[in-house]
């Protein structure tokens, strides 16, 4: 069925409006990064400031260990993503398809881990990390990030599996497929949008986290990007241009990851999959 022009038009209008709202504040960040003299605020509204300069970007790559931080962040985020996706996809499956003892309690327990204000977790978390000698290791960070990302990821995957009719697996069983291979061959491919969201979310959790990283990592060479960026900030003498430039560069990999993954999100692939 063809859409009426009016519907298409209103779709575009909505999207254009929100696209504009989305990018305007970020354009301000661009403007800060180009401004000479480290000013957060400006008294005019021009996006390209007068006597703009790319110094901040140059300094990031030549005088600051930006690439090193980038490498650290990529390593941590990739590992968190892999671990998160693997653990969440299997745990979510168990929660969606099986009735077992403690299932409801588990679902709730997973949620409860998110309910405690992070402010108060920092102190005991730091003591834990210190006692386990995990200060200045990525392992401590990895475990924490995975456990932060997992609750959402597990629930999310469970939600996706829930929308897949169990009849598909039953059919597979009849065809002589075992439980594991039915999961691997039938269910997972259909749940790809869920996996994409899980991956994106896990990646973002690790990519932008800063507070815990500041506790765990004390060595400047091991800094992740958010920590590196935060080191440009000082009360009343922040290097705003560097801060803004680095923040913008940080978002580039996210956009790339999203672009790479999003064809699975908005492809024409329909779950019906049975007939087209």
């Amino acid at each position: 069925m063809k859409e009426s022009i009016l519907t298409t038009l209103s779709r575009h209008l909505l999207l254009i409006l929100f696209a504009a709202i989305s990018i305007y504040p970020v354009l301000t960040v661009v403007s800060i990064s180009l401004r000479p003299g480290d000013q957060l605020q400006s008294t005019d509204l021009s996006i390209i400031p007068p006597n703009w300069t790319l110094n901040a970007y140059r300094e990031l790559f030549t005088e600051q260990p930006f690439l090193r931080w980038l490498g650290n962040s990529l390593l941590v985020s990739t590992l968190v993503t892999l671990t998160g996706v693997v653990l969440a996809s299997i745990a979510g499956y168990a929660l969606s398809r099986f009735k077992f003892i403690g299932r409801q309690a588990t679902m709730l327990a997973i949620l409860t881990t998110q309910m405690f204000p992070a402010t108060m977790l920092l102190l005991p978390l730091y003591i834990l990390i210190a006692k386990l000698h995990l200060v200045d290791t990525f392992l401590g960070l990895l475990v924490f990030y995975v456990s932060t990302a997992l609750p959402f990821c597990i629930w999310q995957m469970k939600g996706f599996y829930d929308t897949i009719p169990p009849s598909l697996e039953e059919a597979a069983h009849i065809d002589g497929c075992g439980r594991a291979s039915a999961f691997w061959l039938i269910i997972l491919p259909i749940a790809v949008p869920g996996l994409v969201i899980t991956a994106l979310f896990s990646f973002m959790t690790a990519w932008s986290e800063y507070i815990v990283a500041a506790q765990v990592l004390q060595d400047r060479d091991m800094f992740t990007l958010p920590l590196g960026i935060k080191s440009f900030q000082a009360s009343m003498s922040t290097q705003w241009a560097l801060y803004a430039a680095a923040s913008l560069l940080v978002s580039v990999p996210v956009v790339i990851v999203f672009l790479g993954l999003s064809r699975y999100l908005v492809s024409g692939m329909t779950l019906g999959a049975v007939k087209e």
Partner: protein
Amino acid sequence: MGSQSCGRLILVTILALGCLCHVGCGRSDSRRTITLWHQMVPRDRVMLNRLVEEFEASHPEIDVRTLYKETEELRSGFQTAALAGIGPELVYGPSDVLGTFHAMGIVGDMSPWLSANEASEFVDGALTYLPDPHDPQRRLLLQVPDRFGNHLALVYNRNFISQPPTTTEEMVELAVANTIDSNGDGRQDRYGLVWNFVEPFFAIPFLTGYGAWVFDDSGKPIPALDTPQSVAAYEFILSLQSEHGVVPRNCDYETADSLFKSGKAAMIINGDWSWTDYLETDEIDAAVAPLPVVSATGKPMAPMVSPKGFSLNALVDAQAAEDAMQFVKFMTSETSQRKFMEEVRILPSRKKLLDDPLIQEDRTLAASKAQLDRGRIMPVDVELRAVWDAMRPPYQSLLGGSTSPAKAARRMQHNALASIDIIQQQSAGTRHLWLWQLAGLALCGAVIVWQRESILGFMPDFRRQPFPYLLIVPAIVVMLATVVFPFFYNVVLSLSNMSLRNFQEWSIVGLRNYVDVFTEAKFFGVLLKTLVWTLVNVFFHVTIGVALAIALNGPIRGKAVYRVLLIIPWAVPAYITALTWRSMFHYDYGAVNLILGKFLGLAPLNWLGEPGLAFTACIVANVWLGFPFMMVIALGGLQGIPQELYEAARIDGANRWEQFRNVTLPLLKPVLAPAVVLGGIWTFNNLNVIWLVSNGGEPADQTHILVSYVYKAVFSFYRYGYGAALSMVIFFMLLGVSVYSLQRTRATESVYV
């Protein structure tokens, strides 16, 4: 193919984990390490690194590691590290935190390393001593400074002002002459005078000029904020705004800074850390001068001055302390200080250097010295922090025009006394500790009895179907690893008296903190605000997210471009975009007011100055930050809806709305439900946005939600026990609401079951 790639994945993971552990063990070095946490500004860091290299060259057995931490982070990080029994050997910063560190017992005495003779080489008041808690006759040396100052002065733009004012009358005259609206649009193109309106630190010179001070003259830290002198000072400040109109409407540090740097302010009051920057800004011709004499009193406006320097961690062993002190002596030596003085134009802490001809030759240093001589040393008492905190809200209201000088002063004094009571609270532990241990055991027992069927049924069920258990165990183990200890630690903390005065020797006091939570008058107001915050945010996140996902779903031109643009608020780190939103809400220069004025003809709104509007501003910023996430989830969810269902609905004659209600929504529910429930929890506990957009609860602590309230209690008032109790209350509220809503919506159940 499938199992192959699975195997590869596991292999990669194991290898990578190996790498991580390896990195962790890294750096084997025979040198002894000392770590320094400092908060030097970028310009100073370059110098610091150079000096560290010099030191290491002359002390080959010592490795100095420096780590920059922002002021507040350094303070809270050092406290936390001390509780964990580790931490840097040295911390570097201004002296005002020493009272706190001393009360907590986390900084050590440095006097064994500094003879009386050596001590006499420092400027009077530069070395910070505090009484030994165990022996009141003894004084402990808690900081050895490498500089002295950290003071405010007047910076003026010589393009507009040839001679700096010497009296406040002249200052007002110059300011009036330089407050210019060249095109007559009612918006000033240049202001006469700007400074940071947010921090009372910047009001001190006005107070001293009128003969007021933060504490009374008993020599004890008793606040004296409500005096005729201070009211006169506030009246003067207010007259600059209301009578002379020479200062802007709302002006935080960054606004003042930008105005001055871009030549839109003729004078600024700012500290010695900022001057070099101004001198080097090409657009202006800046010069520093001492603050003027108040015409009404004949007294000079005197800023607070304080030393900055090194303090020693109380927990380090003798060898580490020895090494650390070697470094401190090197850093505070005459040669090192001279370098800092020459390079960054900072006043030294040694008498000899202060008399150096360089100071008289350099105009900035000379003005700085002249200002320093008029300054008053900043007290190091813990009470000062309570005073700042008490002054901030009324001072902000005063400049926001919502209170009078007399009322502001009265409220400051009242708040200060109350805050000091809270900070100084000291209490003994309960003698009935066993009672609490018994209660804990009884609770565990009750849970076991209550869940006995599940516990007994577990093994048979595991034997019957091990598969689901095996799938879920890895995830559970990872989560428990990071959650269990912190949770129980907080349970214990919430029953304890941990605070500034009971920092390392805290004990169980029972339910007192919980009583405090519910009896504190503010609690229910803040709770209500938190609920509004959560509901409004989640509502807009979901509706905007789903609407955009539906608009994006299906064939539409430019889909890829839209997708990328719409994901951007999620992709760019919130710690910068939240600040951007803050500047967009600025009264004079923010985009929001300009747009509202231009397109809707609305008068400008004082977004950041009015409590309700400031809260709205926080919500707008957070909605912006959150909708892309929901959009992505909804996009994923829409893929799971079979097209046949829509066809079937159409055949049944359903219109678009009915299709949405009866097909899209129910099938989106299982995918959206976790995002909504968790989104609600995250929003409820979202500290960052409120903190950044409202700059820590401005105006006047009116924009707090529960978590920022907890944050403030813990980090401003050191009420660890109270903070933990409030956190437990938050936890149980969220738990209750989640359980209820999950049962109501049956979100845990599959649609096909």
